[in-house]
């Protein structure tokens, strides 16, 4: 079983869940639970390997030339994170099923959640760092969708945008860091990177690379000064906050620190950068958390502070500190997820999260209160709860610098942060559940539905189990995760509650006592903080910077774009001409304009056609203010061009040009009905002469270039196509074989563009209602006979014939001029004729086909043909063919490229008709509008 499936399952599940949510409100929740369980089941066979210390790596070659593999890896750290992501994810899925109301779209929520889960699993199990970065960015994107889930709320949108801007910016820095890392090591695979720590640390590029990687990690983990996005992301639904900000999103940053720990740590740059960032974040965020009135705001800052703690531990860099860091990652995930869920329950049942209103809920929801108290005690670091153990290890580790000058500062700051943490945990409990009677709550509080509390109960039970029996519960996974962080043996450690009277215990006691005292004297502090908050507002600073950025972008745009297409085209063409002239007058090598290739003789017919073509072109320009006449002349030019194609051995092009010409002219005529019939002369004489000179210069330039090229011999790569077309592609029409076989991938792109153009036009024309003019430009009324009988009957007779021709052209395309493009255009022309002759409504009633579907099927067939070759182990769009003998008809060639050509055919038919039918419908409505006016 391949490792990649673990990360890919949630992505596949997201589509599944979105689909089944239409069947019923709760289907999405059950479906997501199922998907998560499947991912867990997929993880288990590998988990046993990872537990024994093995590293499982599965890789598929992706872009071997760049050293890029699609590679997954499962070791202790990856296993720990995968378990956290999936298990807490499962609890969140259960919780969200009760949290979301009837008005919320369950399918969308769970699809986003699964996408996010898949991205996180991808980060945890990537072996290739570039691939890790892709999943990293996917978490930014999917968390954007999750945070902005309530799209109608302003704070959801702005919070999501801020999170995306900060973490996305960090992702960019991280890409830079990984590219440098890849340059240094010579490989993007973690196995190689982790093994070459000494090489990395002694390299000249170490410092810039380190800074870039840390920028990525710090923005993701909301480290100071990038912490401000996290509190603003609290606009998300609470299950999202509980998931993103306990076990997943923000843990990605510290995961990266842990992952690259053996490769990057151990230098003074690492120590100072990571320690100081972690320390400042730890203390500042814990301080701010005390003053937040919003329950989730308090938890958000507490999260930032705990992330600072973990960062600081990795910064300290001793093996024991790294172990404590991993341990705190587990503990924080457990207690913070349960606290967020408890906060969500309180909000859900009382209608508010404001701690100035909430109080005395103990009487109304004692069960929830008990659960919240255990989790909060764990957050504060009270003995017997899991938070205490890792915090005690943390306190002990801060002491290692005590003998340095100013070394006392680190343990002192750690204790101070501990005091703050106790104070805010105490506030969370005392303020919400005690402190008098609730008065003006929006809702009458009561206990939530039974199963909404189950996820909290499970997590709280874990808090206690880990806190009391650490060696029995958490030790195995902690040891294996820590050993893969350290890439070596785990230091001697003793997970016990009681280590005797030592400095760390003393620090814990100081924090507990100090926190209680601080909470008791909180009133004056609150007043002081209110003054401070106005001085230091990161959100305002961010908004200010964003506003300045937009302003700058606007200034640049206004400088370049004067809102005049005419002017921009003028500058563009002039610039091209300057380039052309510079090239032609370059003196660094001598050349003759005329080359040495022999010239073909001119015959009379060609000369005549050329004359007609040139005259039609020039008259189009001269008469361009008479729009209808110029359009007719343009058609002449187009026909002339297709004759040129015929002359120079390009029958496929001639056929294409001919049918495109018909469709284009019909389309332009339809549009012209609504547009002004004439272009008044607005440019003055000077402007016209200027444009004429530019046009002539451009024409001369192109003609000279064409002449110079045509008279020179050349070597083409065409021989390859000519030789391989029949044996390799199974067709004698080389142009068609190139389109559907050699360069099939390009063609797939091109029909996609055509499909998009068709759909774009459909979007513009849908619901468009306009009344066209009732008279032409000379005041003559339009003919009332809309569909002349002779033309209508004739067109109906011709249809089967025309369709037969197009099928013939389609089928023979592989061997003789024809193919999907041409056949599609011929079919379109044949059908358009019905619309013209019989009217849109008449034809549509007889041809009730949704053209969007035709386009979709076409693209699907073309893509499926390409994908089919994967099944047989060949690259995308490899074609195959064989000859079969049919009775009566004889030998018949069947090529897979024909299916591809069928896709092309359908897209061309669909797009062309979609455009014309909708423009025709607009016409029909305009006629009806006029008719109604006449009746009135």
């Amino acid at each position, binding site marked *: 079983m391949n490792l990649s499936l673990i990360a890919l399952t949630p992505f596949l599940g997201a589509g599944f869940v979105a689909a089944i949510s239409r069947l019923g409100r709760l289907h999405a929740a059950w479906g997501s639970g199922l998907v998560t369980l499947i991912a867990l089941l997929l993880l288990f066979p590998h988990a046993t390997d990872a537990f024994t210390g093995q590293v499982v790596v599965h890789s598929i070659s992706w872009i071997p030339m760049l050293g890029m593999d699609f590679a997954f890896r499962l070791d202790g750290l990856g296993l720990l994170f995968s378990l956290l992501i999936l298990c807490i994810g499962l609890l969140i899925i259960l919780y969200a099923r009760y949290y979301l109301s009837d008005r919320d779209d369950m399918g969308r929520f769970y699809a986003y959640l699964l996408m996010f889960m898949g991205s996180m699993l991808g980060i945890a199990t990537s072996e290739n760092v570039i691939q890790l970065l892709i999943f990293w960015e996917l978490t930014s994107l999917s968390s954007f969708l999750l945070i902005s889930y309530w799209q109608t709320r302003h704070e959801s949108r702005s919070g999501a945008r801020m999170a995306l801007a900060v973490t996305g910016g960090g992702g960019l820095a991280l890409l830079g860091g990984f590219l440098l890392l890849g340059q240094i090591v010579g490989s993007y695979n973690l196995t190689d990177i982790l093994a070459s720590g000494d090489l990395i640390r002694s390299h000249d590029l170490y410092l810039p690379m380190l800074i870039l990687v840390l920028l990525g990690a710090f923005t993701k983990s909301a480290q100071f000064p990038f912490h401000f996005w996290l509190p603003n992301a609290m606009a998300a639904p609470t299950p999202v906050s509980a998931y993103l900000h306990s076990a997943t999103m923000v843990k990605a940053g510290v995961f990266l620190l842990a992952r690259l720990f053996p490769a990057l740590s151990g230098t003074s740059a690492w120590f100072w950068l990571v320690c100081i960032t972690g320390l400042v974040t730890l203390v500042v965020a814990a301080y701010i958390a005390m003053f937040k009135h919003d329950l989730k705001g308090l938890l958000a800052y507490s999260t930032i502070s705990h992330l600072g703690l973990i960062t600081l531990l990795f910064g300290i860099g001793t093996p024991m500190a790294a172990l404590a860091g991993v341990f705190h990652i587990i503990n924080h995930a457990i207690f913070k997820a349960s606290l967020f869920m408890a906060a969500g329950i309180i909000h859900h049942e009382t209608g508010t999260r404001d701690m100035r209103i909430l109080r005395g809920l103990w009487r109304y929801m004692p069960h929830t209160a008990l659960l919240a108290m255990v989790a909060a005690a764990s957050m504060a670091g009270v003995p017997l709860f899991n938070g205490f153990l890792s915090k005690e290890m943390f306190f002990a580790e801060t002491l290692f610098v005590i003998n340095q000058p100013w070394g006392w500062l680190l343990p002192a700051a750690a204790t101070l942060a501990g005091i703050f943490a106790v104070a805010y945990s105490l506030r969370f409990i005392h303020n919400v559940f005690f402190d008098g009677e609730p008065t003006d709550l929006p809702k009458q509080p009561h206990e939530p539905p039974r199963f909404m509390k189950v996820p909290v109960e499970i997590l709280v039970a874990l808090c206690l189990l880990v806190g009391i029996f650490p060696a029995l519960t958490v030790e195995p996974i902690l040891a294996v995760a820590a050993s893969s962080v350290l890439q070596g043996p785990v230091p001697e450690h003793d997970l016990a509650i009681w280590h005797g009277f030592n400095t760390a215990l003393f620090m814990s006691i100081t924090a507990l006592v100090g926190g209680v005292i601080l909470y008791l004297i909180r009133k004056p502090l609150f007043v002081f903080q209110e003054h401070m908050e106005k001085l230091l507002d990161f959100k305002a600073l961010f908004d200010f910077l964003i506003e300045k950025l937009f302003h700058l972008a606007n200034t640049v745009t206004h400088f370049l774009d004067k809102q005049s297409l005419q002017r921009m085209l003028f500058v563009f063409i002039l610039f091209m001409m300057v380039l052309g002239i510079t090239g032609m007058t370059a003196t660094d090598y001598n050349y003759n304009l005329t080359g040495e290739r022999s010239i073909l003789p001119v015959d009379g017919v060609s000369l005549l056609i050329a004359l007609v073509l040139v005259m039609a*072109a020039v008259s189009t320009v001269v008469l361009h203010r008479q729009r209808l006449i110029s359009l007719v002349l343009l058609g002449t030019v187009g026909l002339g061009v297709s004759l040129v194609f015929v002359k120079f051995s390009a029958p496929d092009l001639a056929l294409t040009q001919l049918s495109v010409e018909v469709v284009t002219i019909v389309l332009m005529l339809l549009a012209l009905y609504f547009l002004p019939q004439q272009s008044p002369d607005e440019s003055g004489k000077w402007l016209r002469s200027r444009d004429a000179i530019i046009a002539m210069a451009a024409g001369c330039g192109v003609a000279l270039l064409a002449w110079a090229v045509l008279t020179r011999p050349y070597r083409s790569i065409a021989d390859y196509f000519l030789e391989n077309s029949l044996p390799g592609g199974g067709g004698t029409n080389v142009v068609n074989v190139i389109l559907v076989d050699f360069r099939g991938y390009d063609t797939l792109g091109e029909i996609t563009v055509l499909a998009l153009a068709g759909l774009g036009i459909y979007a513009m024309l849908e619901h468009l209602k306009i009344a066209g003019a009732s008279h032409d430009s000379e005041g003559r009324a339009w003919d009332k006979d809309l569909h002349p009988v002779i033309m209508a009957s004739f067109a109906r007779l011709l249809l089967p014939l025309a369709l037969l021709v197009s099928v013939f052209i389609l089928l023979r395309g592989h061997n003789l001029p024809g193919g999907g493009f041409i056949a599609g255009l011929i079919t379109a022309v044949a059908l358009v004729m019905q619309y013209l002759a019989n009217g849109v409504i008449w034809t549509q009633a007889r041809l009730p086909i949704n053209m969007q579907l035709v386009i979709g099927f076409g693209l699907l067939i073309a893509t499926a043909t390409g994908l089919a070759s994967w099944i047989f182990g060949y690259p995308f769009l490899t074609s195959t063919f064989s000859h079969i003998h049919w009775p009566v008809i004889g030998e018949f060639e069947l090529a897979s490229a024909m299916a591809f050509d069928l896709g092309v055919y359908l897209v061309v038919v669909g797009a062309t008709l979609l455009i014309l039918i909708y423009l025709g419908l607009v016409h029909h409505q305009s006629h009806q509008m006029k008719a109604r006016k006449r009746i009135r």
Partner: protein
Amino acid sequence: MELLIAIIVGVLTACGVYLSLRGRTFPVVLGLTFLSYAVNLFLLIMGRLTIGSPPIISENVMHYADPLPQALVLTAIVISFGMTAFVIVLSLKAFLEMGNDQVDGKHKP
């Protein structure tokens, strides 16, 4: 023949450039159509001129026209149709929403 085709491409380009520099949408669309004619022809003749031997493999024929530019131009024709259609509908929509069909920057809605 080479001179003739070079002149045709030149004239088409000149017409295209002049029309695309006009101040209203319709001539600009015509100009773009001219430019796509010119570009398609130019691309085709980069495979040099060959008369009477289309690139369809048959016995006893040794010389063929270069199929590669032809394949490029074939899709280019279809794509330029898509583009022309898009631009003309866009100009229609713009005319309806803004009340004029000018693109010279002087006449704003």
